[in-house]
């Protein structure tokens, strides 16, 4: 049991791991605030994109807690609300809610930002996180598909292969029906939760 060799090996490994821990700790502390700022700014940008005429946003943690309950009551299992922001106009009056909705798309997690006006109109959507296959599902973030949800006061959306006529119908992305369905389900869940927030906001 040649202790000396074992201790020597462990000492070398200890020195390397301590130095590595130090480096990582420092790096994390320096970059953490920058990363947090980036994420905050990114979220605000997407909400502004979804809620053009909102002047400011206030985070509503209380509504966020109730989100899971509301989803369960309406039998929605594949969509979860990950963030609730109250949209206010210049005078501070509540004009709607900006929600982050997470669901599973074709390639994995799909998170969209959705704006719901207190008068029941869907202000629009934006794709925050998507791992859809490039060229197909990823075309969901193109205006041609996204803007179909903007400015419509409907209870729910449904998609058709092409030639959407009714107000609550949208055209699916060719070759990416799974992605289209995921986005549509998320928006419909957003409408239900948005109406809930408007009623007891």
């Amino acid at each position, binding site marked *: 049991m040649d202790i000396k060799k074992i201790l020597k090996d462990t000492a070398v490994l200890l020195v390397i791991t301590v130095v590595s*821990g130090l480096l990582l700790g420092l790096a994390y502390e320096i970059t953490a605030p920058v990363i947090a700022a980036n994420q905050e700014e990114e979220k605000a940008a997407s909400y502004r994109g979804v809620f053009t005429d909102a002047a400011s946003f206030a985070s509503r943690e209380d509504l966020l807690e109730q989100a899971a309950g509301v989803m369960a009551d309406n039998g929605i299992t594949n969509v979860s609300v990950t963030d609730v922001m109250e949209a206010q106009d210049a005078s501070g009056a509540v004009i709607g809610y900006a929600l982050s909705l997470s669901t599973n798309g074709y390639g994995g997690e799909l998170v969209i930002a959705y704006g719901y006006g207190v008068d029941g109109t869907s202000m629009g959507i934006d794709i925050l996180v998507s791992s859809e296959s490039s060229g197909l599902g990823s075309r969901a973030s193109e205006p041609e598909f996204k803007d179909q949800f903007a400015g419509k006061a409907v209870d729910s959306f449904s998609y058709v292969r092409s030639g959407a006529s009714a107000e609550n119908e949208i055209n699916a992305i060719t070759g990416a029906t799974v992605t289209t369905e995921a986005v549509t389900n998320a928006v419909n869940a957003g409408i239900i939760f948005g109406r809930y927030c408007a009623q007891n906001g």
Partner: protein
Amino acid sequence: MSVTGIVLAISFQNVMYATLMVGGVGLVIGLLLGVTGYIFRVEIDEKQQAIRACLPGNNCGGCGYPGCDGLAEAIFKGEAPVNACPVGGAAVAAKIAEVIGVEVADVPAAEGKKAFVKCKGDNDTAVLNDKGRKVCKYGCIACGLCVKACAFDAIHVVNGVAVVDREKCVGCGACAAKCPKKIIELVPESKEHMVACSNHDTGKEVRAVCKAGCIACGMCAKNCPEGAIAVEDNLAVIDYEKCTNCGTCKEKCPVKVIR
């Protein structure tokens, strides 16, 4: 933000936690590996590791064992002689002998090997076609793959045929393995006479393609006192066990193809 601003912003407590955490795991791992290393250690005798340390370690396989580890194991088990390493030569043999306490003298000197190119048809003696290539389809095509394969710079293409530098050659066989025409042979060091041709066609056909090729006349076979040379498939082949380097075959050969 001035540098001091950044420094104050970092809460040293977190950094210290991170260092302790990673360092702690490193410590536990180091000890664990040490202990399990000891529990599961395989009884490789220190002597075998010492032998392995003496060997050059370029795993050329010249000794016939899979790399130096294989040779070290064989020497340790006594299956291989101390000087089995062609590359290391006497120096390595002496060191190993010291390690396992055997006198070098009383160990039979293992026969080192030298590479030999069985073709001497260069651009002058061999008949070339209109594109400047040798017509003979057995001989050396001067592709240079053996030169690239040799780690000891012991073989070069000279005037269209590969030639071995016997001093530098350690007999590791890398060139023989790489030769596309398979005409490099490993000949025991002590032997001086070799047939520098691989052409199996009849004498007449050989004469048509090369002035220095073996015409299978059999003069060497008839005159060899030991019967060490025979003509097989129109080509003279030497049996190195019987050959005593007397050189009669070399004199008798009309086309001087035996070196």
